């Protein structure tokens, strides 16, 4: 239904666009499979992924520097046992003034300095895709938004308004286990928790802003966001459902050359507006988040990136005093270490990489070694494993310890 409307719109745009403007058509065909490496009693299938996917990308230049862009996927999913059409991006670009860019429609927005760790990027993500080994592009999900970018000279400003809430995809029992906070245990077979989205009303429009500029080789940015948590971190025990509480954030970042590599700092203050006092154990507390990153090419085609992420819960005493007995207790400070090592070989056609997360405070983490080979300009093959570990079921990676997987993807681009 959605697709037919989109194609009707595209046809109109094409008909009214003089032939002088160019249309480009690209995409890929991909097959991907993932097998479970661990016993998971809550899952009936031995596969985490078994899908064929066709992606089509259309770009049509229009008058007055405008451009219509569409990226859509058609996929057949053997694990979910369904076929699906996914409109990943569909937007119109227009620059009405020399210092102004407008982007209207479904779009992916990314900002901040983190690698797989996000502080001020409050745009929706699909963590499930990352955990089962889909291509990195599926980590980000489009938002239905209007984006205004202003470039008056010495600084730049991005303003994003998102009238329709799009949540992040988190483990929900379909492919990956989740910790059920109502029952204080890992999900059972077929168990799902419903998550209530904010109503589609004008008052619930989300706003995000970034003000940034360069100081020589250093990039500085200020961020602001007003909307909702993208993960369902609120519990409604009456309805037995999760929800997305109100959230405002403020933050800043700095990135530039440091000790022969690139260093970055990012800070964010999360104001959990429905739990101002921090005493409601059913809603995530306010917090401060700090991210330090450092990346360096140690030798030719061999790069190492390390990150340290610290999350400090505010109103910790209020949280502890009101925590129901038996509920898993979070620590006040959550430390997370990240390492990425990348080696290119054979004229950068062969890439070996390792990604690791480890949290000393949650005592959990994951590792993801991966091999990727570009067989030709058209064909590429990628394989890797995702291994999760953790001592407690309630932590981010601890809930996934039964979901270790090995994946393989083969792609032909056009």
């Amino acid at each position, binding site marked *: 239904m959605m697709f037919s409307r989109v194609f009707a719109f595209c046809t109109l745009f094409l008909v009214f666009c003089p032939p002088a403007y160019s249309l480009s058509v690209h995409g890929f065909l991909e097959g991907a499979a993932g097998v479970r490496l661990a016993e998971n009693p809550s899952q009936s299938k031995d596969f985490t992924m078994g899908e064929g996917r066709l992606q089509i990308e259309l770009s049509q230049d229009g008058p007055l520097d405008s451009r219509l862009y569409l990226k859509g996927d058609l996929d057949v999913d053997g694990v979910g046992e369904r076929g699906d059409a996914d409109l990943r991006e569909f937007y119109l670009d227009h620059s009405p003034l020399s210092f102004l860019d407008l982007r209207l429609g479904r779009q*992916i927005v990314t900002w901040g300095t983190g690698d797989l760790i996000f502080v001020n990027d409050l745009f929706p993500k699909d963590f499930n895709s990352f955990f089962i080994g889909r291509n990195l592009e599926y980590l*980000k999900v489009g938002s239905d938004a209007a984006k205004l970018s202003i*470039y008056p000279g010495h600084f730049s400003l991005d303003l994003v308004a998102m009238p329709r809430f799009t949540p992040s995809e988190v483990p929900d029992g379909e492919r990956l286990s989740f910790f059920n906070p109502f029952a204080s245990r890992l999900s059972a077979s077929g168990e799902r928790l419903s998550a209530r989205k904010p109503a589609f009303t004008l008052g619930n429009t989300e706003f995000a802003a970034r003000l940034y500029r360069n100081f020589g080789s250093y990039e500085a940015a200020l961020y602001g966001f007003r909307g909702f948590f993208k993960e369902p971190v609120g519990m409604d025990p009456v309805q037995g459902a999760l929800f997305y509480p109100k959230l405002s954030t403020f933050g800043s970042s700095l990135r530039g050359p440091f000790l022969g590599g*690139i260093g970055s700092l990012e800070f964010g203050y999360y104001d959990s507006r429905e739990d101002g006092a921090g005493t409601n154990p059913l809603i995530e507390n306010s917090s401060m988040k700090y991210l330090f990153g450092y*990346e*360096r090419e140690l030798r030719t085609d061999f*790069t190492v990136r390390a990150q340290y992420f610290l999350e400090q819960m505010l109103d910790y005493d209020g949280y502890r005093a009101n925590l129901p007995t038996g509920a898993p207790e979070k620590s006040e400070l959550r430390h997370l270490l990240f390492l990425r090592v990348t080696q290119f070989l054979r004229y950068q056609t062969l890439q070996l990489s390792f990604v690791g997360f480890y949290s000393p405070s949650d005592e959990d983490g994951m590792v993801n070694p991966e091999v990727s080979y570009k067989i030709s300009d058209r064909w590429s093959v990628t394989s890797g494993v995702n291994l999760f570990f953790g001592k407690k079921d309630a932590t981010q990676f601890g809930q996934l310890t039964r979901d270790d997987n090995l994946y393989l993807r083969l792609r032909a681009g056009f």
Partner: protein
Amino acid sequence: MRTLFVTASIVASLFLSSVSYGLGAEEVIKKSQAAFLYPGKDFKARVLMKLISKDGQERIRELTMLRKNYGEPGEDQKYFIYFHQPADVRDMTFLVWKYPRKDSDRWLFIPAIKLVKRIAANDKRSSFVGSDFSYEDVSGRSIDEDTHALLREEKYEGKDVLVIKSVPKAPESVDFGYKLSWIDKGSFVPWKEEYFDKRGILSKVFSANEVKPVQGFMTIMKRTMRNVQSGHRTEVVYSDVKYNQGFPDSLFSERSLKSLPREIAR
């Protein structure tokens, strides 16, 4: 006596003409870089790279490159690159702010996730997009990183050239031991460059295969870098070359990375 004097003066003038050809080796390299990495205030070209393996397998990199100079030849430059193909890099953009005396700033935009990534750029010898050219081969190596010596003058494919040997001052910072350049005495075209590895064995050979004037600037339209040890080579062809287009500074910014400027046709 007179014969002797004439002979002596002829010998002396010949000797002097070669020595007093006027330019020191460093000056020749400087002029060569000015002529081939800095001509015009700015520059644009469509670049087709063919990466050819020993067994003949070919990969393509097609890109549009924009360059703008800041200051005199040898000083700062900014580069903006847009990739047309292959599929896995199409629509990627790449921005380099190059400084002769410190590490370049490099940004890569990955369109699939709309991510502007900062690239650690301390290794200038790493391969440019998987080709036989290093970043330095594309944007130039700082002249004062090597000591240059004029070895001889000779004919190279019928042209008068100066042969210059360049030895890195910090050998541990590079992957080659020394370099020989065959530089045209008139136009300063580097017709050929030979890179020798640290054992003194020939490793890479650069050659300028077609040179022609564009808007009055001699331009290498076709060039090859051949790795003689691995048998891999990269052939590069420039087309749509334009100089002095008056590119604004704003073109070399994060804005251009994310939304392609009109100066580049997709």
